[in-house]
């Protein structure tokens, strides 16, 4: 394992162990709902479903359609806040 991957593994482990990952997930979900991202995505889902047919739509279909759009539609403010928090965590627990 390279140093970098070891470092990443350590960081990820710490994130999970200290509960920070969960907290960040919750924070992100709350922010996305608040800013209307969730409703936007749901509307997009409806289109996909109507396109594919209600009975034949699969998880894969949805994932393939939703994920790229979802990533792109996250508002800048939400993105900035999350990055800030991640950096802060790393700074605090870097040693």
């Amino acid at each position: 394992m390279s140093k970098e991957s070891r470092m990443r593994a350590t960081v990820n482990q710490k994130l999970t162990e200290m509960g920070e990952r969960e907290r960040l997930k919750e924070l992100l979900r709350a922010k996305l709902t608040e800013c209307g991202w969730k409703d936007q995505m749901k509307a997009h889902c409806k289109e996909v479903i109507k396109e594919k047919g209600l009975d034949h739509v699969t998880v894969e279909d949805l994932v393939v359609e939703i994920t790229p759009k979802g990533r792109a539609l996250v508002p800048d403010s939400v993105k900035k806040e999350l990055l800030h928090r991640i950096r802060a965590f790393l700074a605090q627990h870097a040693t």
Partner: protein
Amino acid sequence: MLSRFPIQIFQMKMEDMPLSGPDNTRLEALVHDIYSELVDDACLGLCFEVHRAVKQGYFFLDETDQESMKEFGWCHVFSFFWPICIFLWCVSLQHMPFSITLLEIVDQPGVDIFGQVYNQWKNKECECPNCKRLIAASRFAPHLEKCLGMGRNSSRIANRRLASNNNMSKSESDQEDNDDLNDNDWSYGAEKKAKKRKSDKSQNSPRRSKSIKHKNGDLGSGVSTEPYKYNYNTGISYETLGPDEVRSLLTTQCGVISEHTKKMCTRSPRCPQHSDEQRRAVRVFLLGPSAPSLPDPDAVVESESFDIPDGQTLMSRLQWEDSPDISPTDSASSKAIVSVSVS
């Protein structure tokens, strides 16, 4: 390994600049990777949620069709508070725009979901079906309650009025029965209203002012129709009574004169506050050494022909019988003599 990075690199300011430097790019890349993971997680969560809703059949529930839009607003107006029901019935009679039946869901600005304008009740007036007056909408329900005479408050007020009316008529008509009524031990039906009665009496009774006048030394004035000067709140003042009255009183009441108020105790002759010795002393004081002894608890009713002017037969049947020879005219004449001698 991370300790290789100098600490000041991790200074966080609110304007968050990405970290610079070769090692820091790796760190920054890490930060972004973590962020992407979190976003992917959120998207996947949403996909699963939507997929489940689709397969379980509740995905499209928030969209209603035209038909159900019309039926949606079934207004539940029949609450437990009935004046509101009557109010709304009156309102509907007057053909106001707000109807109580089916309402269509509407999505327009300036109007609520049922298409009504906010605060349209403020300036509406309704005609009362009873008194035909125009009442403001917000005052309508309480007005109805009083106007129709139904509902809790109006019956309470009516009861109180009846009680005070009964008091007034009763007290002015018959003097003897008031003796009994004053007794704290037993008073049929007057117990629960005793407190209210007393307060009503003290406010409304014409006697109150008359007895006060009389105490101030104004002897000849208040003698007209009120031979028994009872002040119900504080007891009986023996100065204003003739010997016959005193005797009759003492047969039915304790009669012990209070130190502070100089009034006779109106309770039963066996009241626990005073002793028999005190009662004997009072009788001697008021009626002379030959005063009759305290009434026997088992005394038989004296005369069957005793006529009670008031219809309150319950009072008369109770233990302490009034002596039958008191009449208003007697006491009126003897009072002047007594007040001179006693004082």
